[in-house]
């Protein structure tokens, strides 16, 4: 400990900037980890809080996926003696037409029984109609809102609130303002209560409920009652505690969680190189200090522990700062992330508060500490091996020995062989990822050798253009691979990440656009919601049938999308008229016979699954898929797999007739419309308006609208991955600043000589700038090469474990070119500070510098 104070602290004080830059890598890595996870956690917490607050005293909830069920199910549940109270619920999000900020989560209940589960305390104390639910029920336009929503929107009791219902705009009267309580804080306070039977009309539910909330008789265990209910109702119904809805949402958004993990681990991995580089430099620069300590009796172990302690302290400080920064990042992004996840998965929540999990923060601290210790391990071991006699002599300590280079190259070769083997025999996840990591290690080990070759190759060119500045900049790199290789490795890894992500994004866009062209080819769409992923509202079948009869409509297809559990996970079922779809859409077939599979599916003899479903759920064509329906288990053969990007977690195409038969649900989410030749979308819009008038709520989307909506969501999703790019570039730029800061210290005398023999300040700056640009150029070239490999692995990872999207390998040449100005520009910017330091110092001291 005393050595830490006497030796390390003095060194840190003397090299404060460099020490700060060193821990900056950890700060950023941990900040991204904490930020992305905390934001995600906040969204999940907001969702589960909403669920919990709305649940009240509910012990069990009965659902049939998102499909809902008929009213008679309620009676069956209420007749079970173990059930104390069971009430129907419809839960949906609506946008009020007047005087409102934000969406309203509508909880529609049956007030006669619901007060046993939830408390509705009113602001003005006038609970009369709550005391007598019949008063509330007798007036079907009744609605209750929260004190918070009322205050924010200036709404008073008996004011009107218009909701755009399935039957057109419908005026409700605010007949109660609820006092602040657990319930009213659900969905950020934007909550309204209405009668469930009124909601059936508002949201187009027909005579169906979304779910049943229930409490069991006193003294009974809810789990046991739940099992009994499952037996009575059949496997098509899920009987779960309210908290399990949170788990379902977590499962839906798991792709985002994985993305957050990859981003932060990558940032930490690059940060590790910065720390490694800094410690490797510190060990070489402090050789004489180590020599003196060893001469004075310090053991090798004490030296190693000293350096590890330094890294531990740095790691903890970096992780602490990173955790704080991460919480700030989460505060900034939780709201927009919530909206994005809401749009992608169609799940309502309102993330306003950031909930930082102490376990996550502790985990981040441990992660920062471990990263720092791992990074400093090799330099600390090298420090312990320093020979005291040699250490006290001056020498070329920045050079790597031939032996070191041979060992690195040997290991790299061995790793490459193993990578090759993993590719040939790498079906298993473990072998595949081992190969992935070994390929990264092989690249990193080759960096000093490849970097040296490139620097030597660039020297003649640099010298030809800038005889002094260019030659010296290249020489600085050639002479000090130990100093520069860490920064070059970090930069090369960042560039490779960008290439991999860029390539993946390019391929994903190309595939999605191709899918949009093939699958979404109707001229226009009608949807009951403004947001196409929101399934709160549904058209009754009668609406769709009326549209089909309009003159000028060549063909309509009624689509009902609904998430239902498969293998315990919610999966998107797309029910439509398969025969009609086949006439217009030819989704690329991955496995199975195209014509045959559609014919069989149209006849209700099986389902067609998307390729990403097949990959994620490890299912193949020919296998039997058992789906639990309200009518009992339904065994459907998988007739084939097709490319379909309807949902990130995969989709199952099922004929509408089969869906209607087993789920007793003829409602429609979207009507796809193909127009007769010569009929325009505008004309059809008018015809629909004339026919429907105010009888229905609907929104018209043109083909172009839908495409741009999907591309907008895709953009937002990939926007998250661009955070990775920004962090990676930032961390590697820190590495360059760090390396240059050391470089100008090492080259102080050389730079002094340059000035003494007539070098102008601009020329001195020039050599530092060129050194940075050369590091940038080498990192860029190596990153391009590493990126080609990283892209392969990124596409495989995406197909295997992320979205299940099988994307074509296509090297992003345009992005590689765009990186030239980005990386060289960033490298140049990172050299401005060090270059100024280089020209500001005392010339006399520089010439005397040892």
């Amino acid at each position, binding site marked *: 400990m005393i050595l830490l104070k006497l030796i390390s602290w003095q060194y840190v004080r003397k090299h404060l900037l460099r020490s700060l830059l060193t821990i900056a890598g950890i700060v950023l890595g941990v900040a991204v980890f904490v930020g992305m996870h905390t934001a995600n956690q906040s969204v999940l917490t907001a969702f589960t809080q909403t669920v919990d607050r709305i649940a009240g005293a509910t012990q069990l909830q009965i659902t049939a996926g998102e499909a809902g069920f008929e009213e008679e199910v309620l009676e069956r549940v209420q007749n079970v003696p173990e059930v104390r109270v069971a009430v129907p619920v419809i839960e949906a999000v609506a946008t009020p037409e007047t005087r409102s900020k934000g969406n309203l989560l509508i909880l529609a209940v049956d007030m006669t029984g619901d007060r046993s589960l939830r408390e509705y305390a009113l602001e003005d104390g006038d609970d009369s109609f709550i005391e007598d639910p019949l008063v509330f029920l007798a007036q079907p336009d009744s609605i209750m809102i929260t004190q918070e929503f009322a205050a924010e929107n200036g709404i008073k009791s008996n004011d009107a609130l218009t909701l755009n219902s399935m039957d057109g705009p419908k005026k409700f009267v605010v007949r109660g303002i609820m006092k602040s309580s657990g319930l009213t804080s659900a969905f950020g306070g934007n909550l309204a209560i209405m009668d469930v039977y009124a909601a059936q009309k508002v949201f187009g539910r027909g005579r169906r409920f979304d779910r049943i909330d229930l409490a069991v008789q006193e003294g009974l265990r809810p789990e046991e009652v739940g099992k009994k209910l499952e037996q009575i109702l059949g496997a098509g119904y899920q009987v779960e505690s309210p908290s399990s809805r949170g788990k379902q949402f977590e499962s839906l958004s798991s792709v985002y969680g994985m993305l957050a993990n990859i981003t932060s681990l990558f940032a930490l991995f690059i940060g590790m190189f910065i720390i490694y580089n800094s410690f490797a430099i510190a060990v070489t620069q402090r050789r004489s200090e180590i020599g003196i300590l060893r001469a004075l009796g310090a053991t090798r172990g004490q030296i190693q522990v000293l350096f590890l302690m330094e890294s531990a302290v740095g790691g903890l400080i970096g992780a602490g700062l990173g955790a704080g920064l991460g919480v700030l990042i989460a505060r900034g992004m939780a709201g927009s992330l919530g909206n994005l996840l809401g749009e992608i998965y169609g799940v309502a929540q309102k993330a306003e508060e950031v909930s930082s999990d102490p376990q996550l923060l502790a985990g981040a601290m441990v992660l920062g500490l471990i990263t720092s210790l791992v990074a400093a391990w090799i330099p600390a071991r090298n420090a312990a091996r320093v020979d005291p006699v040699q250490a006290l002599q001056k020498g070329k300590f920045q050079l790597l020995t031939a032996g070191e280079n041979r060992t690195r190259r040997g290991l790299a070769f061995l790793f490459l062989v193993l990578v090759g083997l993993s590719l040939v025999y790498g079906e298993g996840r473990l072998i595949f990822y081992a190969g992935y990591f070994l390929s990264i290690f092989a690249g990193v080990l080759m960096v000093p050798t490849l970097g040296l070759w490139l620097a030597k190759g660039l020297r003649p060119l640099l010298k030809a253009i800038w005889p002094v500045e260019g*030659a010296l900049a290249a020489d600085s790199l050639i*002479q000090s691979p130990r100093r520069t290789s860490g920064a070059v490795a970090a930069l090369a890894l960042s560039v490779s990440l960008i290439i991999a992500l860029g390539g993946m994004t390019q391929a994903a866009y190309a595939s999605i656009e191709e899918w949009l062209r093939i699958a979404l080819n109707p001229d226009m769409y009608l949807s009951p919601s403004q947001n196409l992923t929101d399934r709160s509202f549904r058209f009754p079948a009668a609406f769709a049938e009326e549209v089909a009869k309009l003159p000028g409509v060549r063909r309509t297809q009624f689509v009902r999308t609904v998430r239902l559990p498969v293998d315990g996970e919610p999966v998107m079922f797309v029910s439509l008229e398969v025969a009609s779809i086949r006439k217009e859409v030819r989704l690329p077939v991955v496995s199975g016979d195209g014509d045959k599979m559609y014919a069989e599916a149209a006849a209700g003899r099986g389902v067609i699954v998307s390729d990403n479903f097949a990959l994620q759920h490890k299912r193949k064509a020919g296998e039997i898929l058992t789906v639990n329906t309200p009518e009992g288990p339904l065994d459907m053969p998988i007739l084939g797999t097709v490319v379909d990007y309807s949902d990130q977690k995969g989709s199952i195409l099922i004929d509408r007739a089969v869906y209607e038969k087993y789920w007793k649900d003829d409602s429609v989410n979207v009507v796809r419309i193909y127009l007769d030749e010569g009929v325009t979308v505008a004309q059809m819009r008018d015809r629909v308006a004339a026919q429907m008038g105010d009888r229905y709520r609907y929104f018209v989307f043109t083909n172009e609208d839908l495409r741009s909506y999907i591309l907008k969501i895709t953009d937002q999703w990939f926007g998250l991955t661009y955070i990775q790019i920004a962090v990676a570039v930032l961390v590697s730029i820190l590495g360059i600043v760090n390396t240059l800061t050391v470089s100008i210290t090492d080259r102080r005398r050389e730079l002094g000589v340059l000035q003494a*023999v*007539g*070098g102008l*300040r601009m020329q001195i700056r020039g050599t530092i700038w060129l050194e940075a640009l050369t590091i940038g150029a080498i990192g860029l070239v190596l990153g391009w090469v590493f990126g080609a490999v990283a892209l392969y692995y990124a596409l495989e990872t995406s197909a295997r474990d992320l979205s299940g999207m099988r994307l074509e390998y296509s090297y992003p040449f345009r992005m590689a070119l765009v990186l030239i100005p980005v990386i060289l520009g960033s490298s140049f910017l990172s050299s401005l500070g060090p270059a100024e330091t280089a020209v500001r110092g005392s010339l006399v001291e520089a*010439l005397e510098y040892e």
Partner: protein
Amino acid sequence: MIELTGVTKRFDGKKQVTALNTVNLRIDKGEMVSLVGPSGSGKSTLLNLIGGLDKPSTGEIALDGAVLSGLSDDALTKLRRDKIGFIFQFFNLLPTLTCLENVSLPLHLRGWKKAQIEERAHELLTLVGLGKRLEHLPEELSGGERQRVAIARALSVYPPILLADEPTGNLDSATGVEILGLIRDLHERLQTTVLIVTHDKNVAESCARQIALKDGVVVQDRRV
């Protein structure tokens, strides 16, 4: 002509140190002068001030009438380029550059054309007797040879003033004599003003004028 008027140099630290105290000095064109004195007497400081590597705390230094304290950093560098050549005790050659490149360095910095640079560098290295070691790196040369390269570099534009800080201090005595002979020869042939800081009595006595410093003050100024 080099002219110092009331030049004082103080170094601020925990305790202020006066390295030079009100030095007045005039060195005419073509003189060969030695600066002697014990360690800490201020001789290297004086040389650095004359070379424009450092600035006096008070007083004025003028080279051929140009007052250094009034010049910007870049103007000072340009003046140093044209008028001054430096020879250091530890040679200060750039280890990664060949002899030819080291000598070419100041000419490149002046923006000379490549052919001119090569011609001049050849000429200078031949002048110092290293015409056949053009492509050697400094580490492949002996101490004396390295100092010859350093001298060739200092002479790159045949500056009127040559400043040498212990030019033989890092050499054995025979090589020291050889280097001193070379400097004297160049001084005579090129009429260069030479200022040599030295501890070596023989070197000091080989100069026509000897200036002795003690505690930052000129205590002796004699012509031999």
